[in-house]
C-alpha cells in the first residue's frame, strides 16, 4: 500500500465532492427560481410571511396589482382595473394565476437596499417585495375588452417583432378583487368557466384559420408549381362518401391558390388537403407547435392535432379546413401569426419586461427572446402576401383602405351539431412591410370571421394607431 493509491482515493473523492458542491451552488444560485415558483411549492407562504407582496405595473406605469389596506385596516390585494385584466394579471388571493403566478417568486423576493433590509429584519418588520413591470397597455386592453362586446372569447395583442403581450382579454370574466369571497360561486360556474383564461387555455376548433397551415404545407410540397394551382368550386366536394361544403353555400367558381385562400374556399382547400403528404403535414403541425409546449410563462393548454398516415379521407378533408379533431388556443394562433410577421422566427410570448426593487431600482431586464424558427423568411413572405390578399379582396376586406395595412386570415369555426353555428376568428398583423402588432380575436358563437372578428380587430388596430 503506497501513498499513490491513497492519493488516488483522495482525488476521486475530491472530484465527486467538488462536482456535488458545484451542482448545489449552481442550483441554489440559478436553478432555484423555476423550482421555487412551482405551484406545488407551499413554502411560498413562508416567504409571504416575511415579504410584503410586490406590485405589478402596466407599460405606462399604472398599477395593475398592489398591496393595500381596506377600510378595516386589513391588508388586501388591490386590482384597480378589476375584471378588465382579471385573467392575464390574475390574482394571488386564492392560489395564484396569470402574472401573479408567473412572477410569484419575484413579487415575494425583496431586493431592497441591504442596510434597510437588515434594519427591517432586525425590527421584525416585513420587507417589500420587488416590482414587476409588464408590457400590458391599459388603453389597448380596454379597446380589446370593449371590442369583444357581449361575446365570450378572447383577444390577444402581441408586438410582432418582440413577442411581447400588449393586451390579453378573456371573457366571461370575474372581479379579482373579490374572487376569494365569491370563490364558491365563481369556481362552480361550469357553464361559463370564468376562471379559465380563454386566450391561453381555451381550446377551439381553428376553422379556416388552419388554412394558413394547409396553404403553407401545399407550397412547401409544391415549391415550383403552387402558383399553377387551379380549381373550380361548385359549392361542395365529395370524396369517399364524405362531403364538404363552402360556408353558407357559397359557390366560388374558377380559382387559383391565392383566391382560394382569400375567399377561404372550403372545397378548394379540401381538394388541396387530399393532395398533401399527411406525414409531412403532421411534421409541419409539429413544427408549428401543435400538441407541443408553447413559449409562455402563463398557464396554457396544448393545442391538439391528430392526423397521421392511418387517418381516413373524411378526417383529412375536415382537418385541411380546420374542422375535425384539431383544437387550438388563441395564444398559439397568435404565436404562429407572430412568426409569419417576424420572417418566420417565433418569439417567446413575454408579459414581464423588467423587475425593479420597490423603490424602482432596476434589478433585471427581460430582453425579447427568440424561441424557434418555424419557417424560412421567404416562406413567411409568401404567406404574408397571401394574407394581405385576404384583407384586400377576400373575407377580411373590411380592413382595406385604412391608414394602415393588415395581413390576416379569418375563420368561422363550426362547433356543436347545429349547422351554421360558428365561432368568429380573426388573426393578423398590421403594416406587413414593417410589422407592428399581431391581433388575434375569437368571439364564441358570433358567426363568421368577417362578420364579427374582423370589425373587432379593426377597432383594436384603430386604437393602436390612434384612429377614431
Amino acid at each position, binding site marked *: 500500500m503506497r501513498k499513490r493509491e491513497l492519493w488516488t482515493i483522495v482525488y476521486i473523492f475530491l472530484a465527486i*465532492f467538488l462536482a456535488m458542491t458545484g451542482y448545489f451552488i449552481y442550483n*441554489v444560485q440559478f436553478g432555484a427560481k423555476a423550482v421555487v415558483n412551482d405551484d406545488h411549492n407551499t413554502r411560498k407562504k413562508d416567504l409571504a410571511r416575511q415579504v410584503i407582496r410586490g406590485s405589478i405595473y402596466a407599460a405606462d406605469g399604472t398599477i395593475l396589482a398592489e398591496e393595500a389596506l381596506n377600510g378595516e385596516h386589513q391588508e388586501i390585494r388591490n386590482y384597480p382595473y378589476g375584471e378588465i385584466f382579471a385573467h392575464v394579471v390574475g390574482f394571488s388571493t386564492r392560489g395564484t394565476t396569470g402574472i401573479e403566478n408567473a412572477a410569484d417568486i419575484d413579487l415575494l423576493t425583496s431586493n431592497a437596499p441591504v442596510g434597510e433590509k437588515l434594519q427591517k429584519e432586525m425590527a421584525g418588520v416585513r420587507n417589500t417585495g420587488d416590482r414587476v413591470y409588464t408590457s400590458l397597455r391599459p388603453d389597448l386592453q380596454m379597446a380589446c375588452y370593449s371590442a369583444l362586446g357581449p361575446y365570450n372569447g378572447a383577444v390577444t395583442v402581441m408586438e410582432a417583432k418582440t413577442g411581447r403581450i400588449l393586451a390579453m382579454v378573456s371573457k366571461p370574466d370575474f372581479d379579482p378583487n373579490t374572487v376569494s369571497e365569491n370563490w364558491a360561486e365563481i369556481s362552480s360556474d361550469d357553464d361559463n368557466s370564468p376562471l379559465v383564461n380563454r386566450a391561453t387555455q381555451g381550446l377551439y376548433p381553428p376553422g379556416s384559420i388552419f388554412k394558413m397551415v394547409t396553404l403553407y404545407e401545399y407550397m412547401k410540397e409544391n415549391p415550383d408549381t403552387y402558383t399553377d394551382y387551379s380549381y373550380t368550386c361548385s359549392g361542395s366536394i365529395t370524396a369517399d362518401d364524405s362531403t364538404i361544403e363552402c360556408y353558407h353555400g357559397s359557390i366560388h367558381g374558377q380559382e387559383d391558390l391565392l383566391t382560394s385562400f382569400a375567399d377561404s374556399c372550403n372545397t378548394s382547400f379540401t381538394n388541396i388537403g387530399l393532395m398533401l403528404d399527411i406525414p409531412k403535414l403532421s411534421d409541419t403541425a409539429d413544427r408549428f407547435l401543435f400538441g407541443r409546449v408553447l413559449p409562455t410563462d402563463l398557464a396554457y393548454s396544448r393545442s391538439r392535432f391528430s392526423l397521421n398516415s392511418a387517418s381516413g379521407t373524411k378526417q383529412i378533408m375536415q382537418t385541411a379546413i380546420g374542422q375535425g379533431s384539431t383544437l387550438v388556443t388563441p395564444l398559439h394562433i397568435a404565436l404562429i401569426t407572430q412568426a409569419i410577421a417576424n420572417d418566420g422566427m417565433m418569439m417567446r410570448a413575454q408579459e414581464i419586461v423588467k423587475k425593479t426593487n420597490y423603490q424602482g431600482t432596476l434589478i433585471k431586464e427581460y430582453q425579447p427572446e427568440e424561441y424557434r424558427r418555424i419557417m424560412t423568411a421567404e416562406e413567411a413572405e409568401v404567406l404574408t402576401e397571401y394574407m394581405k390578399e385576404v384583407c384586400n379582396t377576400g373575407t377580411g376586406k373590411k380592413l382595406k383602405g385604412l391608414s394602415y395595412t393588415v395581413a390576416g386570415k379569418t375563420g368561422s369555426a363550426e362547433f356543436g351539431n347545429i349547422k351554421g353555428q360558428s365561432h368568429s376568428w380573426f388573426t393578423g398583423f398590421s403594416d406587413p412591410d414593417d410589422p407592428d402588432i399581431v391581433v388575434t380575436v375569437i368571439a364564441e358563437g358570433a358567426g363568421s370571421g368577417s362578420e364579427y372578428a374582423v370589425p373587432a380587430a379593426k377597432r383594436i388596430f384603430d386604437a393602436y394607431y390612434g384612429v377614431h
Partner: protein
Amino acid sequence: MAGLSKYFIAIFIVFYTFHCFAVFSYRNDEERRVFYLFQNVLMVLTHVLGFYVLCVRKEDSSLIFLCVFEEILFFGFIILFRVIYPEASRLVTNNICMLMAIGFIMLARLSYTRAIRQFVVAVIAMAAALIIPWLMQKIYLVRYRYWIAGIAGLAVLLFMMTIGTVTNGSKITLTIAGVTFLPSEFVKLLFIFFVAGMLTDEEHTDPNTGRVDTPQLLASMMIAMAHVGILAMCKDLGSALIFFVVYMFMLYAAMRMPIVLIGGTAGMAAASVVGYRLFAHVRNRVRAWRDPFADIESSGYQMAQSLFAIGTGSWFGLGLAAGSPQSIPTVSKDFMFAAISEEMGGLTALCVILISLSNFLMFMNISMSIRDMYLRLMAVGLAVNYGFQVILTIGGVTKFIPLTGVTLPLVSYGGSSVLVTLIGFAVIQGLYITAGNMEDVGPYEDEYDYHDEDAYDEEDEHRHPYRGYR
C-alpha cells in the same frame, strides 16, 4: 435580533469552515492552537444563537435547558478528549462537535422528543468515544483474529434477515427493550476491521509484491460479497452499496491495482441495472431523480419537497422555525441537509458539505501518516465509509444522484448512526495517536516501499511492543 440571527449563524459557520482548511497552512502549533480555540468559540456561538432563536420563535423556554446540557456535553467532550489524548487531532474533535451542534439545532426545531433522544445517545456515544482510542492500544488482540469480526458481522446480518423488521421499505431494524437498532451500521465497523486484517495478513502476503495471496484474496471477496448479498436481499441497497464501495477502495489500496476500481465500478453499474429491474422502489427513486415534478403527488413528492426547501431557502435561509421542513417526509433522517438548507440557508449547507469533506481529508491524511499496513488500511476503510455516506446522502437530497436513503453522519437523527459514526471517529483518533507516536521514529518516504518494512519493524519494536506480535 431573531431576524438577523440567520446571517450571524451563517457567518459563524463560514468562519468555522474557513478554519477547517486554513489550519493546514499553519505549520506552527501555537498558531493552530489559537485557531482550534476560535473554532470552539464559533461552534458555541452558532449553537447558542440557534437555540436562542428557537426559544423566541417557538416560545418554548425549556429549550434553554437542552441547550445548556448540550453545551456541557460539548465542553466535557472537548476538554476530556484533550486531557486524555493530548496528541489527538483537534480538528476532528471540533468537527464532530460542530456537525452535532448543527444537527442538534435542527432536531430541536423539528421535534423536541427526538432532540432529547439524540442528546441521550450522544452522551453515550461520546463516552464510548473517550475510551476507544485507549482500546486501540490493545488492537493487537484482534489484529490476526479478523475472522471473528467477519463471521460475527455475517452472523448478525443473517440473524437480522430472519427476525428483523423492515422499516421504510428498505431498512432492517431490531428492537431490544424499546430501543431500535440498525444492525447494519454496527456490522459496517466489524466489516472494516475484517477486511483490513484480511488484506494485510503478513502470513498470506507475498514478500516480493506485498500483496496477499490468491486464496486469501478470494476468501475476502467471498465474505465481502456475502455481506453485500445479504443486505441486497433485505432490500437495504443503500447499505449494500456502501459495503461494496468500502471493500472496493480497501482492496484497491491493499492490492495497488487500478483494475480493482475499474472492475468494481463496472460491477456496480451492472448491479445498478439489475437492481433497477428487480426493485420497484429503485425505479421510483430513479424516476424521482430524473424528474421529481413529473409525478409530484407520489413518487416525486419527497424529492420535490426537498428541492422546494433548498430553493426557497436560498443562500441565507428562511430562518429557524420560519420554513416548512416538516413537509419533507423523513426530514430528520435522510433529508436533514434539505432542512438545514431551507432554514439555515444554502451557505450553511455548503459549509456542512465542506466540513464533511474536511473530515474525509483529515481521515485520509491520518491514513497516510500511518506506516502500519493494517492500521492504515483500517483508516482508509473508515474514511471511505464516511466520505461515501456523505456523498450518498447530500447527493441524493440535492438531486445530484438518485436518493439512497442514507443519513448524514453526526447531523441526522438516528441513534445507531451517531453511535457508530462516533466510534468510527474515535477509532480514527486512536489511529492518529498511534501514528503520532510512530512519527518520532523518523521520516518516511512518500513512495513507501514494502521491502523496507522489516527495517522499520525492528526499529519500532521496542517502542510498540504490540507490533509484530501474533
